[in-house]
């Protein structure tokens, strides 16, 4: 039977990390524990030595959080956001977008979705202790993907006048779509 100290630690891993990461770390902890048992330590001493060698739960969770692919992806999307934003803002001003026949509800919905995505990315990018918060990067990335795709589609089919700035903004969005589409499936499993 495994020591209650180890069982409690493993429960903590499963509570705070995705299943695959928790399982891998738990296997490593059990291996460390068994190593000390095999070296002749008693159950309680082996558990305490294993936990000391493994690192406390907060440190291990923080390390997984700090190195999570979702955190880096959120930072990348946030970093490229201003570039895309400036391109689109310039294109829409030059194209006098306020005169386009787009219903106010769609404009508001687009703005609200963009705000939601930025908040989600910021929460994921700055997370230091919570792996769960990093999962927001996946949802926010999906929203960004949808917004970029909507913007590009609108330029292709609805823009009355395709200026070079508008084409540049669409190209930036296409680049982000490619990067996001490649990154999102990996985030879904980690």
């Amino acid at each position: 039977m495994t020591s209650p100290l180890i069982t409690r630690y493993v429960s903590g891993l499963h509570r705070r990390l995705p299943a695959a990461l928790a399982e891998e770390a738990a296997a490593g902890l059990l291996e460390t524990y068994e190593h000390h048992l095999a070296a002749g330590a008693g159950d309680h001493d082996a558990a305490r030595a294993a936990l000391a060698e493994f690192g406390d739960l907060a440190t291990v969770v923080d390390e997984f959080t700090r190195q999570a692919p979702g955190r880096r992806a959120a930072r990348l999307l946030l970093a490229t956001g201003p570039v895309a934003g400036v391109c689109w803002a310039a294109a829409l001003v030059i194209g006098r977008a306020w005169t386009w026949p787009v219903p106010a509800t769609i404009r508001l919905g687009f703005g609200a979705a963009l705000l939601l995505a930025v908040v989600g990315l910021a929460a994921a990018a700055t997370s230091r202790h919570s792996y769960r918060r990093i999962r927001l990067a996946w949802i926010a990335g999906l929203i960004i993907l949808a917004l970029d795709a909507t913007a590009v589609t609108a330029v292709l089919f609805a823009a009355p006048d395709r200026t070079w700035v508008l084409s540049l903004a669409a190209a930036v969005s296409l680049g982000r779509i490619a990067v996001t589409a490649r990154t999102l499936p990996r985030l879904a499993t980690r």
Partner: protein
Amino acid sequence: MRADAQALKGHLDTLLLASLEGGPRHGYAVKEALRSGSGARFDLPTGTIYPALRRLEAAGLVAGTWAEAGGRRRRIYELTPAGRRRLAGDRAAWRDFASAVTAILEPAP
């Protein structure tokens, strides 16, 4: 002297890649290889090895697969071709750096 995680910052990736050069290993074995290979100077908390290996995997430098042994699933890591190239580059850079530092700290008489 025992080096902590902070002292290893910037070198950990290379050391992890080097520990896999001899063949596939799971996280605990990687940690033990670092500890024994360094004469117990690099004795990192075992739990911090796993996130680092996952990051190297996401970067395409190592490949991880689940394997079952003794009724327990363990994730085994091995170097990818990109990982081998990175290790070779890091090793060459380290040799250059170390020889330059040695030349300054221990000048020939």
